[in-house]
């Protein structure tokens, strides 16, 4: 059984600024107070293809994902390790991130895909963010009997974190915009 959902958000900022903000989201110290579920982020690999201009990056994310006691008893830990792969194509102005869990795989498979593209109606000034998340509780795992409940809770948590992430992104975009026009905030 898979629970999947999609979210879409329009940033009234150009694609270049929004993608810059995405890189800063987990890294800038002020954001750590808000995005408390992100414990650690490290870059594992990066490749710049000099001919196409495409930038490939892989990052390791350590996420604090506490669940209710009955889940914790089964799963045994609050920490989840994920790998995020990103491809940025500056020529076509597209950015795609895919994040998957690599720990807790015997219990759950989570995959999140995020795309940032220029807004079709206002490609130079606005950016569309499309986010697709899927959660699958492994059928034979100890969590299977309460799969629906767990998936529901995961979905709620992801939605909360997405909303926080968007707020952080908007803040960074405003800061970058002010910086670009020479105003200091």
């Amino acid at each position, binding site marked *: *059984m*898979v629970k*999947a959902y999609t979210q879409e958000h329009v940033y009234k900022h150009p694609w*270049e600024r929004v*993608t*810059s903000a995405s*890189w*800063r989201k987990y*890294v800038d110290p002020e954001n*750590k107070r808000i995005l408390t579920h992100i*414990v*650690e*982020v*490290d*870059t*594992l*690999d*990066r*490749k*710049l293809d*000099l001919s196409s*201009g495409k*930038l*490939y990056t*892989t990052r*390791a994310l*350590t996420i*604090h994902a506490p669940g209710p006691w009955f889940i914790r008893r089964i*799963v*045994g*830990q609050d*920490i989840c*390790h994920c*790998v995020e*792969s990103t*491809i940025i194509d*500056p020529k076509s102005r597209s950015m795609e991130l895919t994040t*998957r869990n*690599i*720990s807790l795989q015997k219990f759950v*498979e989570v*995959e999140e895909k995020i795309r940032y593209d220029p807004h079709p109606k206002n490609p130079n000034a606005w950016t569309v963010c499309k986010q697709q998340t*899927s959660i*699958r509780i492994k059928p034979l795992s100890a969590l299977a009997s309460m799969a629906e409940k767990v998936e529901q809770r995961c979905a709620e948590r992801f939605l909360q974190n997405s909303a926080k992430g968007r707020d952080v992104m908007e803040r960074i975009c405003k800061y*970058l915009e002010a910086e670009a026009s020479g105003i200091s905030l």
Partner: protein
Amino acid sequence: MSSKEKKTPSSTSPCAQLRAAYHDCFNRWYSEKFMKGQWDKDECANHWQKYRDCLSQHLEDKHLRRFLEAESGQIDGAATGRNIRE
């Protein structure tokens, strides 16, 4: 195998400073060069290398081996075979 993993505060990570230096370089290069059409030079290669070398040294501390094993299937863009549509 579940292990008790402590929440390591990022500021005490042994590679934190090298990581921060790499991020500073990356953010500057990204907005000032890469986003303005200059993608013919990887300007932060040095910073990246130092940071990466530090990560390799601390492989055991940070359970990075499992990340690296997972990562080797990711960069070529191929799906890892997970079927999320049933």
